[in-house]
Structures are given as C-alpha cells and as structure tokens.
C-alpha cells in the first residue's frame, strides 16, 4: 500500500511499576493513510493516549516500555529507532498537540521563542528569521496581531489562543503527521468548533495526516474518515465513520453511541442519560476472555472463557466480539 503513511503492527506498551505490570496497550494494529484523519476513541484509561505517545516514544520513562510490535513510519520502525533519529522525527515529521492548552506552553518563555525554537532546530533557520517565521505561523493559525503576540507570555493569552499557538508549533516544520490528543476537550464548545475548523482547513492546504484522539464521538463524526474504538488496551471496533455510526457492532460502541445526548428527540421521562454500567477493568488484573464481559449487556458463556479476535465484518468494518465472529 503506497498511500499508507504510518502502520502500527501488534503494538504492546506496558508500564512496569513495583513488580506490577500495567498492560496499557495490548496488541494494537492501526494504519493511517496520507491526508487521512483517523479517529481513536475510547474512555479514560483505554490506552489511546499511550498508543499515541508510543508513536513518538514519549512514554513515561523508565516505567513505560514498548515490549512488542512495530510502528512503521515512511519506512522507519519507530519502535526500534535510536533516540537521535527519534529527535529528528519529533516536531519535524510527526508533531503532537495536547489536551491542556493552559499547561502545554512553558510559562516563562515568550510565545515567539516557543515556536521559533522548533524551526531553528529542524530547519536550521537563524534566530531572526526563525522569529519572522514564527510570526507568519501565528497569522496562519488565525491569531490577530501576531507581531505583538510573539513577544507575549502564555498567561497573556486565552485558552483558545494557546491551542492555536500549540497548533502553530506543531505545524511549524511542515510535518507529515499530526497527533492530536484530545485537542478540544478543555475548550468551550464555540472555541472547540473554531479549532476543529482550523485543523480541517490546515489539513486541506497541507495534506497532513491526523491521528485524532478523543472520547467525543461528535468530534469524530465531524473530522475523521475512519474510527478505531479502544477498550482496555485493545481495538474493539474499527470502521469507516459512516458504517460505524450507521451500524455500531460492538456492544461497547453501541453503549457509547447511546450515551450521546440527542437534540432531535425528547428527553427520556426520567431525564437520565443512558450510561455504560460498571467501570473499566483494572489493567493490572484483566479477566480471562473478553475485557468487556463484566459491563456487557449481551455477555454469554464464551465471552468468559475466550478472548475474541478482531475479525472483519464486511470490507471496511472489523469488530472484536463473539456475537459477530464466524
């Protein structure tokens, strides 16, 4: 496949703390095409952020380790690449933006410097030109009066503006791929819409691929072409956006869909939003069989004994559930 930019095969990322092993990612397969947006969905602790951080090898050291699998990006296996090579890729070929714009910028460095240092590092621009470049980037992400803003500090900017600055930093070196880890979760809905629109228009201009991590299916519906749903360190369902929303197959995905409040229907008489019962299983102590068994309304005998494989249902839809195997 020529148009595949990044291919993750059988990724396992574990955390080793005090003789305990937290298997945060347990055999994830994913691929992202050029110019494509892939949504990675799941609740807190499902392993989606760890998957993303594994790609850039930014997992917390020394506890976290990629124990198995390959992450092939433009012919290079990032899982086994040297630290030096990873540094050339980070911020240059693959960039990342984070959830909390209020804490992702360094409070004691000027906005201009935080953008300029990436261009100096990867593009080798001299300081003055790097600062001019930073000003242009700020204008590009829709920040008014960029010449004034580059001399300011993060605390002088609003949350939405800071996330725009983060996007400017991430895109400064023209990367091929952007990992956006909950980029709009901490923002107001109006700002959220603006940031999503900005990401879409930048993607149209540059053809960048986006791995969009979110727990918000609404954001996925708006942004992504394909979706992977993660649960307890595994992908439980993987489909193009249309078929996932039309026909969610995994009971977990169904539960997620049902818990979205709907504006086009009257509220239920008790006004209680449907929720998925129970808690995410403890990754230190996973049950035998399917990881979702204790919360699944359709659980049966086989789920408690054997772990279901991720198997295709149709051409663009895979699901990890005994109800849909064979």
């Amino acid at each position, binding site marked *: 496949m020529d148009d595949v930019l990044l291919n993750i095969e059988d990724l396992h990322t574990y955390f080793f703390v005090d003789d305990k092993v937290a298997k945060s990612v347990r055999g994830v397969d994913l691929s992202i095409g050029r110019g494509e947006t892939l949504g990675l969905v799941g609740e807190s602790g499902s392993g989606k952020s760890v998957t993303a951080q594994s790609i850039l090898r930014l997992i917390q050291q020394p506890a976290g380790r990629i124990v198995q699998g390959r992450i092939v990006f433009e012919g290079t296996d990032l899982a086994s690449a040297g630290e030096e090579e990873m540094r050339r890729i*980070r*911020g240059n070929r693959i960039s990342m933006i*984070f959830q909390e714009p209020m804490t992702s*910028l*360094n*409070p004691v460095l000027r906005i201009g410097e935080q953008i300029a*240092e990436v261009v100096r590092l990867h593009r080798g621009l001299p300081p003055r030109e790097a600062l001019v470049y930073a000003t242009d980037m700020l204008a590009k992400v829709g920040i008014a009066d960029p010449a004034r803003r580059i001399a300011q500090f993060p605390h002088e900017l609003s949350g939405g503006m800071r996330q725009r600055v983060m996007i400017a*930093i991430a895109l400064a070196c023209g990367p091929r791929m952007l990992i956006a880890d909950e980029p709009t979760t901490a923002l107001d809905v109006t700002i959220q819409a603006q940031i999503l629109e900005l990401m879409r228009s930048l993607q149209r201009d540059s053809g960048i691929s986006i791995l969009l991590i979110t727990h918000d299916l609404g954001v996925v519906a708006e942004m992504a072409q394909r979706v992977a749903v993660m649960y307890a360190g595994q992908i439980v369902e993987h489909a193009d956006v249309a078929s996932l929303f039309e026909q969610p197959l995994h009971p977990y995905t169904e539960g997620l869909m049902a818990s979205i409040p709907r504006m086009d229907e009257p509220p239920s008489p008790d006004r209680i939003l449907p929720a998925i019962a129970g808690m995410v299983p403890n990754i230190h102590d996973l049950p035998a069989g399917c990881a979702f068994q204790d919360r699944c309304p359709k659980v049966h005998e086989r789920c408690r004994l054997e772990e279901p494989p991720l198997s295709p249902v149709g051409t663009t839809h895979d699901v990890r559930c005994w109800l849909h195997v064979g």
Partner: protein
Amino acid sequence: MTVGFYLLQRLLYTVPLLLGAVTIVFVLVHLAPGNPVDYIIGESGADKEMIARLTAEMGLDRPLYIQLLRYLGQVASGNLGYSFASNTPVLELILDRLPATLLLMASQLVFSISLGVTLGVLSARRPNSLLDNTITVFSLASFAIPVFWLGQLLILGFGYYLDWLPIQGMVNLRAGYTGFDHVLDVAHHMILPVLTLTLYNLALILRLTRGSLLEVVGQEYIKVARSKGLAENTVMIKHALRNALLPVVTVIGLEFRALIAGAVLTETVFAWPGLGRLTFDAINARDYPLLMGMFIFISLLVAIGNLVTDLLYALLDPRIRYQ
C-alpha cells in the same frame, strides 16, 4: 508600575521594619543578664561609687524607654554611638569588618548555588539512580552536621593533621604580603571557612532544586518540549530548570538570615575578622552600642536580601509584576 517606583516603595517599607527590629532587639539586649559595667570592672571589685559613676556615664541609670528613645534619636541622626569596649565609633568598627564578611558570604553563595543547582539537576535527571542516592546521602549528611562542628572537623583534618591550609584569620600577618600575593594569601585563608559554609548551604539548595525539578518534569509543557524533538539537556536546562528555580530563589532569600547566623558561627570558629566575629565579641562584652549597631546592619542586610529575592523572582517569572 516601573521598577524604580517599586524599589522606592520597598525601601520605604524597610524603615518601619528596622524601627521594629531595633526596638525589640534593644529591649532583649538590655534584658540579658549582666551589663557593660560588670565587664569593665571585671573581677577587680571596684567600689559602689565607681560603679554608680560608670553606670551614669553610660546612661544606664535611666529608665529603659528613655534609653531607647535617646538611642533612636541618635540613630535617626546617623550616629550609631561609640563602642563601650574600645571607645571607637561603632560605624567605623562595622565598616572596617564588613568587607571580610561580604567576601565570605558572596563566595559561599556563588559556590553553594552553582554546585547545589548542578548537583540537583544531575540528581533529578535519573531519580533513585546510584548517582542520585550518593548525592542524597552526602547532602543530608552535610546538612545535618552543625556548622561550628563541621568547621572544627575541617580544621582538625586539613589544618592540623594534613597541615595543608591555614585555620585562623584572613591573612598571614607575619608574611605581610602585598599586591597579588596578598590576594592569594586571602584566598588561601578563605578555603576552609567558605568550604564549611558551602557544604552547609549547598545541601538545602541541592535538595530544593532536585525536588522542584522532579515536579516540573511532570508538567505537560515538558512533554511538549520533548515532542518538539529537543535534546534532553535542552529540555532540562531551558524548559525545566528555569521554572524549577522559582521556589529555590524564594528559599535562598528566606534563608538569608540563616546565612548570616552561619557566618557568625563560622567566623568565630575560624577567627575570621568579620562582622560575625565582631558580634560575638560584642555580646561577650555586653557592648550595647556596638551590639545594636550590628543588629541594625544585619537587619538591613536581611531586608536587602529579601528585596533582591523579589526582584530576581520577577525577572525569572514573567507572570509576576511589581505592584
């Protein structure tokens, strides 16, 4: 608000601060048992008339509040009085000793901050590694040993047994060096007292730097810095250290008085001709005017130390403004 205005405002604040400090210390000093008359007469056993005459001469027969008011009036006109013990103007005595103390304090600050921060960074880079644990044990040990005892141990080791370094005073009086030789001679004499003070203060700065850095390294902007492809050293020094130094600067500022207390002990142990030694002698002689002059100076030093801390803080952290 401009820095100039802020400075002026802060300097004005020090006036009531000094006034309060002087009053409290004045009362405390006079409450302490013994008085200068006893010291002057000593064991000789002078007659009552003589004692009464001396007491009246020094103004010690007046009520305490009158003595205080007279002293304050005198200080306000810039006169710190004469030392009871040596009959020399107090200001002259203090200014004569000040450079020696400043030399000692400045050198140990430079060494303990530079070494403390460096070791703290090394420690925090790999927490709980062999290097980190070694540094921790060393720093806790040097922090736990009282300064005066540490000074005496060093004297015993380097001065007495090894005989490498001078253990008393600031210069070799018999050699009478001049010019560059004099500078070298002073530096040679400084090694042990500066080492004593550095070992003590280093530990605090090191522990603080390490703890503060470990906290900062967990922040999201550090992850962002790494995701930019920056080298680990750049991440640590440029992105983490500057944020981590904020609490360190605060504590150094707050500990300024402890530095002075340490200087008094160290100067006494090493017979260093500075303010600390002068204070020690003044206390022994119940030399009220000299003692009061010393306290005013020390209060002033502490106030300046706090002011410098605040200015540095604003310099390091753009979120802090002068107001």
